[in-house]
């Protein structure tokens, strides 16, 4: 096992790694920018090194500075957290080249899953279903109609060279396809210099379901249950839960098994997540997140497995400490991300926290790196704290979380909590009638 781990991150995830190491008896080194001199992760790590000025590019993203900090403190492993350098294969290589262990997958796996095409290829090879599409540009109406018959309707027609949602059309049937092909192609030609289009199956109300998985160096590959992260605002997850509610057991089993199959077939080591879109009784591979995720606590609550400790153990070369059959889910957990932002305009709200009180009691977990008097920096992401509620069933977990929201106090900055409180009380949430576009639609339909 490692003797000393350098944590190449800040905020709540740095605190999370400090806590995991403390329990494993591993010493910790915090790195920090000048803006984070008084941050909690610095206070609670055993050692700390200032690595640069406030701008992330010059500090937390500064590979030579992080490696040097590990060098001078003689750390034998580096935990990258999430974000920053967590999925940077160059960084992982540099860590390894300096004789230290990168607590995450190999640089090769980072590259494989960092590239959309090679990630999809790996998924297809492992027999995971992909969203049906033309897999390339189509430039005649006839070919388009033919491909569409294979994909099925509704489908999405978009400029092959386009991006950012421009020139996209949802097409309900063949008749419409025939009507809109010409105009879409012409628009594409005008906008991007090529009239070629691309077809893909369109999911009206997909849910975002992701499976936590883990692999060891000896070929063990397990899933640790799934999470539902469909409650997203502009592709940002703001409410996450485990297990995914209202899923047919047969579908749930297939999704979990698919993720485990991908780990086994790629030889992935440490923990990661396989994301899927789910609609009806179908599911489609989206991508792999080769790191610990923000929402990992909900899985920890329902399985009793400490995923960060597991990640560290697997990186250190230990074998998987449990078999698939020993992974048992109990109860239900929901997490809220408390972001420092205007709850309606979504503009960041950095500043000093003048009042802070964390909720408590049974089944309430708070992962945060703030306190009364802490400064929420404008330089980094706006995640201030995560509040997780655990109860025997989903309904109780929702009630518990609503109670916790009454107790929490964050003064001096604005937070996303008022929005989340409304969403938690929304019958569509309790009734599991939501999908990845639900919050954006709901916000549009709100008066004012």
């Amino acid at each position, binding site marked *: 096992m490692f003797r000393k781990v350098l944590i190449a991150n800040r905020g709540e995830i740095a605190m999370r790694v400090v806590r995991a190491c403390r329990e494993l008896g591993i010493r910790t080194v915090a790195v920090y920018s000048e803006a984070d001199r008084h941050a909690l992760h610095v206070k609670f790590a055993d050692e700390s*090194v*200032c690595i640069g000025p406030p701008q992330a590019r010059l500090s937390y993203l500064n590979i*030579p500075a992080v490696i*040097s*900090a590990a*060098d001078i403190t003689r750390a034998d492993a580096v935990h990258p957290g999430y974000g920053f350098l967590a999925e940077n294969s160059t960084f992982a290589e540099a860590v390894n080249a300096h004789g230290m262990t990168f607590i995450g997958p190999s640089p090769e796996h980072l590259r494989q899953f960092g590239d959309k095409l090679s990630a999809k290829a790996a998924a297809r090879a492992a027999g995971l279903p992909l969203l049906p599409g033309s897999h390339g540009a189509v430039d005649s109406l006839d070919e388009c109609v033919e491909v569409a018959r294979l994909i099925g309707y509704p489908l999405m027609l978009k400029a092959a060279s386009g991006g950012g949602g421009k020139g996209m059309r949802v097409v309900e049937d063949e008749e419409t396809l025939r009507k809109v092909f010409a105009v879409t192609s012409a628009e594409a030609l005008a906008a991007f210099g090529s009239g070629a289009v691309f077809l893909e199956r369109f999911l009206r109300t997909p849910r975002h379901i992701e499976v936590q998985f883990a692999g060891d160096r000896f070929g063990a590959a397990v899933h640790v249950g799934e999470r539902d992260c469909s409650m997203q605002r502009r592709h940002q997850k703001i409410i996450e839960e485990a297990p995914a509610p209202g899923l047919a057991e047969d579908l749930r089993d297939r999704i979990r098994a698919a993720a485990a199959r991908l780990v086994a077939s790629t030889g992935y080591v440490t923990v990661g997540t396989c994301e899927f879109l789910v609609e009806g009784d179908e599911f489609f591979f989206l991508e792999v997140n080769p790191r610990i995720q923000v929402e990992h606590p909900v899985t920890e609550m329902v399985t009793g497995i400490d995923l960060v400790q597991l990640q560290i153990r697997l990186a250190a070369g230990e074998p998987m400490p449990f078999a698939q059959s020993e992974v048992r889910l109990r109860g239900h957990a929901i997490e809220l991300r408390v972001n420092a932002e205007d709850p309606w305009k979504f503009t960041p709200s950095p500043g000093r926290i003048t009042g802070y009180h964390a909720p408590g009691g049974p089944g309430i977990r708070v992962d945060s790196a703030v306190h009364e008097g*802490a400064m929420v920096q404008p330089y980094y992401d706006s995640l201030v704290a995560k509040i997780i509620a655990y109860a025997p069933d989903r309904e109780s977990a929702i009630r518990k979380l609503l109670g916790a929201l009454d107790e929490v106090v964050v003064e001096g900055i604005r937070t996303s909590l008022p929005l989340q409180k409304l969403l938690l009380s929304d019958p569509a949430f309790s009734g599991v009638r939501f999908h990845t576009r639900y919050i954006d639609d709901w916000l549009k339909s709100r008066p004012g």
Partner: protein
Amino acid sequence: MDQKDVRSLLRLMKSQGVAEFSWKQDGAEMSVKFGGYAVAPVVVAAPPVGVAAPTAPSAAPAPKAAAEGRVIRSPIVGTFYRSPSPDQAAYVSVGDKVRKGQVVCIVEAMKLMNQVESDVDGVVAEILVDNSQPVQFGQELFRLTPG
């Protein structure tokens, strides 16, 4: 109210656990907000304005940097070396004159030797880090006096 008064007031407020304080009189005003929990206070006591002062404070304190001498800080994290190699002489020693742009030491990072140049003229008054010790970003390496 002069600066001494402000100081003792601040001490009092701190000891009493005041969180915020603001005060205004005859065109003078004051406002303080304490940070709670473990945070070095960021304060910022704006000196009272000249005219109003009944008891009359006066001279602003001399700029700290000038009083204490100039400082050369490490621009990167790494290991501090006073000479280009173990068998060579140190770049600079106490008492040496240093000109802006002159190399004063090396900081090794990721096996690379990075030369650190002085950004001011002066005389080396103190060397604050021992040879081959680790240094952090922004750590003070040399103190100079104006030469």
